[in-house]
Each structure stands twice: as structure tokens, then as C-alpha cells.
């Protein structure tokens, strides 16, 4: 099945945060009311009951020009090669046939390894259920022919959902348009990052202006752990058991042959 993607065009986003509410509504997540901290942003980061947030970032590079107030919808990026999936000890994270990275919560043990393996630090611990949660790209809606809740509610069509190739084409046109219309640094995010993300961003400026990692990387120890340690090292344990069993047998057989080992040994 072809990949389906969320596209977020920052140049059309008015940061109304309807997506944030629609997400809570559809997923029936409780409000996490934190006091106002001097920024419109509700939470510093996503949390166990908040799959998506809109970030508000102020920049003033050139005092003569206008201040830049950048908005960014932030949620799971649904990586092509998700680090969370690689590290999950319960193997409860999987990619479905159109590219959504999903979790089987019945098997999640709340260890949070995925949370820390994620280059975007997206999956978050939900204490009340002892699981780690994140955006599901509303797969259950999509499979019924709907679009994700956030996309459905977006008043300015800053969010779009559909075939990744088509949206990629559209994103490229948008970036071309923006580059000649006052945003020379406009760029696509998610095309090559981490080998591709199933969440495309049309940014009006470089990713660092949106608090996105310019070149996201899966933490180095993860592939090492994943490819070498985990598959092979574990065999040491059966090896020890097998060795002990062998010894148990051979020592006793040899003891019969050589006579009582008993008190002496190392004769």
C-alpha cells in the first residue's frame, strides 16, 4: 500500500491549536493544565496525555526587520526507520501498511526506552496506565476513510493528509512559491531526514528556527546495541547454563572414573 502522510505547511498555520484540541477530543485525552509560563505554548513538550502541541518560537535576527514568530505543530514524525521500534524490548511498536508507526499498548511495559531512543523525544510516559504513548496518525480514522482528527479540523488547510508522493510534489511547489515570495530559506523537512519521515513539513525558514534538529540522528549506541549486543550477547546466559550442565555431568562421570574427588580435588 502506498505511504500516507501528514503534511504541515507552516506558512498557512495560524497557531489556533484546533489540532491540539481535536487530538484530545478524538483520543479522549484529559487536559493537562499547566500554569501560563510567559509563552503561548501550553506545554514545553508533548506528554503522556498530549500527543501534539503547537510550539511558539520568537526570533529576532535583524532588529530592523519584523520579529519572527514561528509556529510549529510538533508530534510523532512516523519515521520510515523508527528508532523507537528498534529498541522496544517488547517489540510492541510496528509500522502499518501505509506508514504509521503504531504501538500495541497491551504489550507496552512503560520502560520509556522508545522515548529516549527517539531523535525527537516524542513518545511520552503516561503514569496513570504505566505506558508510553504517542500520536497514532489516527490510523483508525484513516482506515475508515477519514483523515486524522488534526487534519480534519485545521481551518486553513495548513494540515493535509494523503498519498505521500502527491503531497511531496505539492510540498515542493509550495517551497518554490515561498522561496520567491519572501521566504528564501523555505525548505521541506521530512524528505531525507532519518531516511524519510511520514510527516512532511513545509518550513518558511531553516529547521533550527523551528526548534527542529537540522540533521536528526538516531543516538549512536542504538544501532550498536541493536545490531550487535542484543542479538548475540544474550546467548551468554544459555551458554553458562549449558556449560554448567556439561560440567555437572562430566565431573561426575570423571569422578567415577578417577575415584572419589571429594575432599581433595586438584590432586
Amino acid at each position, binding site marked *: 500500500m502506498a505511504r500516507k502522510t501528514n503534511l504541515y505547511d507552516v506558512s498557512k498555520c495560524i497557531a489556533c491549536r484546533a489540532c491540539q484540541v481535536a487530538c484530545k477530543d478524538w483520543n479522549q485525552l484529559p487536559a493537562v493544565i499547566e500554569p501560563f509560563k510567559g509563552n503561548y505554548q501550553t506545554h514545553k513538550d508533548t506528554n503522556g496525555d498530549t500527543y501534539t502541541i503547537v510550539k511558539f518560537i520568537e526570533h529576532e535576527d535583524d532588529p530592523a526587520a519584523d520579529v519572527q514568530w514561528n509556529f510549529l505543530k510538533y508530534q510523532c514524525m512516523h519515521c520510515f526507520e523508527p528508532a523507537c521500534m528498534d529498541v522496544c524490548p517488547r517489540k510492541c511498536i510496528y509500522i502499518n501498511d501505509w506508514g504509521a508507526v503504531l504501538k500495541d499498548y497491551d504489550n507496552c511495559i512503560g520502560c520509556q526506552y522508545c522515548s529516549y531512543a527517539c531523535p525527537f523525544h516524542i513518545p511520552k510516559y503516561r503514569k496513570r496506565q504505566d505506558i508510553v504513548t504517542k500520536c497514532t496518525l489516527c490510523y483508525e480514522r484513516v482506515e475508515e476513510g477519514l483523515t486524522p482528527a488534526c487534519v480534519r479540523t485545521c481551518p486553513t488547510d495548513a494540515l493535509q493528509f494523503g498519498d505521500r508522493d502527491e503531497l511531496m510534489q505539492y510540498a515542493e511547489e509550495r517551497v518554490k512559491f515561498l522561496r520567491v515570495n519572501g521566504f528564501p530559506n523555505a525548505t521541506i523537512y521530512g524528505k531525507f531526514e532519518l531516511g524519510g519521515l511520514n510527516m512532511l513539513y513545509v518550513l518558511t525558514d531553516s529547521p533550527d528556527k523551528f526548534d527542529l534538529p537540522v540533521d536528526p540522528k538516531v543516538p549512536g549506541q542504538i544501532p550498536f546495541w541493536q545490531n550487535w549486543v542484543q542479538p548475540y550477547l544474550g546467548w551468554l546466559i544459555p551458554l553458562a547454563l549449558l556449560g554448567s550442565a556439561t560440567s555437572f555431568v562430566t565431573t*561426575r562421570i570423571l569422578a567415577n572414573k578417577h575415584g572419589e574427588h571429594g575432599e581433595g580435588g586438584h590432586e
Partner: protein
Amino acid sequence: MQWVPEYRDDINRVERFNAVARITHWGHTVTFILCLFTGLVLFCDGMDWLATIFGGYAGAGLVHRIAAVLLTLFIAFFVLFDFKGIISWVKDLLRFGMNDIIFVMKFPLDFLGLPVKMPPQTRFNGGEKGNSMLTPTCVIFLVLSGYIMWFPAIFPAGLVRVAYPTHDIAMVFATFMVCMHGYLGSFHPGSGESFWGMWKGTVREDWAKHHHPIWYEEAYGEKADAEKE
């Protein structure tokens, strides 16, 4: 068939481990095994049947954490009540020398029950020295990384990220050592007598003389007696 060497109180016995060391050891044995099995439930596929014993994954997680706290407390107990013992233990480890290397090299043969002539050993033989170094190190890593994973919010993300593989690697090595140690310290005909050293605190004097001649000489031999006097 004989499992553990027979306990012989008709033969003269000498003290090998004091009460604090023994309580700590067995405390750790229980808590480690609890942690190990609950951990395996959480981390391995196909262990679901084990989860049932602990009341499901949530129960296993709870037992894992309780056992981990107890395990930590046993370390504290050992440090508080037998600090001297730790010092002498460390001192003995630092005597790791040629004899120990030869012991370790010859050990596989002994392991399988072949007759080998071993060089004289101190209180802990070469293999035990290795175990004494590796297992506590692994446990310390397990404890530290465990708490970091338990309370990730208060630690830097980089540290948390390292904590997960650390916990796993330490677990594998510790379990490997624990298996070997468990076997050698009980069922192995040669070194099985040391089981009683940890269980009752004493070992057969002749076994001590034979397996740990240097220690025996220093602790109970003529020299030691002379010093006492």
C-alpha cells in the same frame, strides 16, 4: 547422585564468611533472582507464562522495583555493618597475580572434572576474584542505570539514553556470572564445599588447606597463630 558435597561436621571446620557477608549474599541472591525473572518477563518475548506468576506485567514491574530497592538496601547493609570485610575483600582482590592467571588458564579442565594441579590460591581463587570483580561491577551498573530509568525526568536525557543498553548488558554479564557462580559454588564437586562456607559460615579445614592454602596459612596457619599470640 550427589548434588552439593556432603556437610561434614566430623571434620574440623574453619570460618570462611561472617554473618553480615552471608546475609548480604543470600539477600542479593533472592533479590537478584526476583529482578532477573521479573526483568526477563518485561524484556523477553515468550516469557508471558512467567508474567502470570507475578500478576501480569504491571505486577512484574512492581516486584522488579521492590526487589531492586531491597537489593540496594542489602548493599547499604553490607557497607554499614561490615566495612572492614569489604576492605579485606578488596585487598584480597588486589593480590591478583601470576598464580591467579595460571589458575584461570587451567580452570576449564578442572571445570570439566579433569585432574589438574593448581597453584596455591589466596582467600579467593583466580576465578572467584574475577567473579568478585565482575558481578559487583555489573550490579552497580544495574542499580545506577535502573534508578536512572525509573526516574528519567531528573537525569539528563543523554544519560537516560545510555542507561537502557547499560542495564541490559550489565544484566547479561551479571546473569552469566551468577549462573557460573551458582554452579561452581554448589554443585561442582571441587569447589562445592564453598556452598557451606556461605550457608553455615564454615568450610572443612582440609578443603581450605587444599584449595586456598595461602589464605589458610595466613588466617589459621602457624604464622597466624603466632601473630595472635
